[in-house]
């Protein structure tokens, strides 16, 4: 396969391929972080995760239209405002859903699966009624499209760099919140022992609500960012949900570091195999390996040591 190419060409291709792997890694991290917070810390299986992402995407679509119509001079920076509003919108919807639905189901984890799946169908139909069944096209500022020619042969997609920077900053933000803030300490305390946490005066109800809201908000930011690389339609959230769960479960549900490690290993394996094999086969092999590892190690890559 490589016989006809010069060393320089091969080097360039491998560099770009490595970069493709890193972009995939960042996409996985963005998809999975929100779910890791909700699933890992609260044990809620949120099947509507993809729809929270798409809400973020639709917010971006609305903001882009508003800027194009009323503030065309600021169009270049609308994306940052859109991401912030996406966080607020998805987060607020998350808070509401937790209050209206999830909190009644904490003692019945399997029922949350059904309830959130129902929620995902309801949200899809709402999007369809409001925005139409067809996909909408989100126009991205010019400076975020196109590629950066690093050398004559190597070209790096700018939106890829953007997604990577975003993934790193959101991971850092979540890390600081989880391990350096009072809220994070409370979340971890509740995760370890809910009854004791309540007994020492932590408001478990409010902490749960906030956790769910932040998880959904992060999903909204991810959805907003994905308008650059994917489609925005009522059912587009479904495209992400399988990969998202795969990453979170493989990483060890309760560990954020595990989520990142698992996103890294799955994305690298997949992008390397996609290069050497065909697309569908790469996916099959990735899934087989993940299933195999989970059979040997059901708790995932990283597991918290807990006294049960």
């Amino acid at each position, binding site marked *: 396969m490589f016989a006809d*190419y010069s060393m320089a*060409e091969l080097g360039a*291709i491998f560099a*770009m*391929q490595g*970069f*493709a792997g890193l*972009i*995939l890694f960042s*996409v996985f991290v963005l998809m999975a972080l929100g779910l890791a917070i909700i699933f890992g810390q609260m044990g809620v299986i949120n099947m509507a995760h993809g729809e929270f992402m798409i809400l973020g995407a639709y917010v971006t679509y609305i903001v882009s239209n508003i800027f194009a119509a009323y503030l065309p001079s600021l169009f270049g920076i609308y994306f940052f405002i859109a991401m912030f509003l996406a966080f607020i919108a998805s987060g607020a919807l998350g808070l509401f859903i937790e209050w209206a639905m999830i909190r009644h189901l904490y003692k019945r984890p399997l029922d949350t699966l059904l309830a959130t799946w129902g929620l995902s169908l309801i949200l899809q*139909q709402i999007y*369809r009624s409001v925005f*139409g*069944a*067809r*996909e*909408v*096209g*989100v*126009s991205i500022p010019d400076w975020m*499209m*196109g*590629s950066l*020619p690093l050398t004559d042969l190597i*070209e790096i*997609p*700018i*939106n*890829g760099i953007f997604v990577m920077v975003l993934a790193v900053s959101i991971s850092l933000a979540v890390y600081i919140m989880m391990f350096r803030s009072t809220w994070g300490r409370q979340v971890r305390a509740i995760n370890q022992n809910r009854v004791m946490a309540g007994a020492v005066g932590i408001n478990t109800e409010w902490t749960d609500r906030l956790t769910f809201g932040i998880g959904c908000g992060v999903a909204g930011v991810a959805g907003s960012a*994905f308008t*650059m*690389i*994917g*489609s*925005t*339609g*009522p*059912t*587009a959230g*479904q*495209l*992400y949900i399988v990969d998202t769960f795969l990453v979170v479960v493989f990483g060890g549900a309760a560990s954020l570091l595990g989520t990142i490690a698992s996103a890294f290993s799955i994305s690298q394996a997949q*992008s390397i195999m*996609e*290069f050497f094999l*065909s*697309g*569908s086969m790469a*996916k099959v092999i990735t899934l087989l390996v993940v299933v195999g590892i989970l059979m040997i190690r059901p708790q995932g890559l990283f597991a918290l040591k807990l006294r049960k």
Partner: protein
Amino acid sequence: MSDKGKSTDSLGMSRRAMLAGSAALTASLFTPKGLKAADYPTSEVNTTGLAVTDDTVTVGILHSITGTMAISETGSVQAEKLAIEQINAQGGILGRKIEYVQEDGASDWPTFAEKAKKLLVNDKVASVMGCWTSASRKAVLPVFEQYNGFLYYPTFYEGLEESPNVIYTGQEATQQIIAGLDWVNKEKGAKSFYLLGSDYIWPRTSNKIARKHIENFMEGCKVVGEEYYPLGHTQFNSVINKIRLKKPDVIYAIVVGGSNVAFYKQLTAAGIDPAAEKPLVLTISVTEDEIRGIGGENIAGSYACMKYFQSLENENNLEFVKSFKEMWGDDIVIGDVTQAAYLGPWLWKAAVEKAGSFDVDKVREAQVGIELPTAPEGYVKVHENHHLWSKTRVGKALADGQYEVVFETADLVEPDPFPEGYQ
């Protein structure tokens, strides 16, 4: 191919027919003589117990209006309703107004089969306009054959099927593929092809036909890569790198659904501008409908090969686009399948009037050979194999989301659902 040129001969009449949609009164002047319900007693035109009364006839519309396929099927429903309304404004069929029962297949194939049975058994509809994906058509096929229903199926598809109970108003694969490949070879000098698709029957069968044609019938041409990605795949950076490595002249892309959007956005972002034609992007899966999701700026310069583009400049089409926008709004776009769906009710009307009966067996017999000079795509004719003779065209995508037609076959292309040498 002696049919060439008929479309122009009959334009005057066709235009009248189209105008009639908005002016019922004048329309009645042009309705062929004798088509009054009284001349066609119900007992004679309906001997099999279909839902035909002295002044109405009921048809079924069976598409997904919820679920993932709603995105594509909405346009077909709109086109069918427009055609029905226009036919009614002209006085209906055999003097009877068309009423429709609409059912939702909900993007779920067993649901399609169930609803098809409901339409045929409970509602006794005289014909059905419906289905979009091959999977849904395969699901309803046994139902239509068992209860002797009659289906008008609008989508371009992989071929390999010819049911006595279905009229295929879209193109089968060879009609759509071969002309486009020959064009890109002759006009653009393309020699090497990279075949890419979503992983299911239509892209795989189509690429198989493309590969056979490239390797066996196009001198000095070769396929340098062929691969498939699962439906809904959203990350194409690896395959884009692979394409860079292989340096094909043409990327032949049959990617569908949400993947489509991801593919073109990432292709542009990776610095492969379709407009530079290095490599050239040729697709058979992106209509004007899909471009709305992809964004015109991401796909401008790519070529699509199909039978209809909204920008076609003939009188039939100008009228069609105008009526369509009047009914469904100015911001609507019309893709290939939407136009094919529009043909369904008109083809059925012509067959019923030729047969002088709604009975499915008589309509089926009358349907073969029916000509439709009023079609927006231009003149079409029903082949013995229940597909349509139609022209194939190549369009170049523009940033505003429309296609500019750059090539059109001189003659109608014969449908060949079971192509020899391509299996």
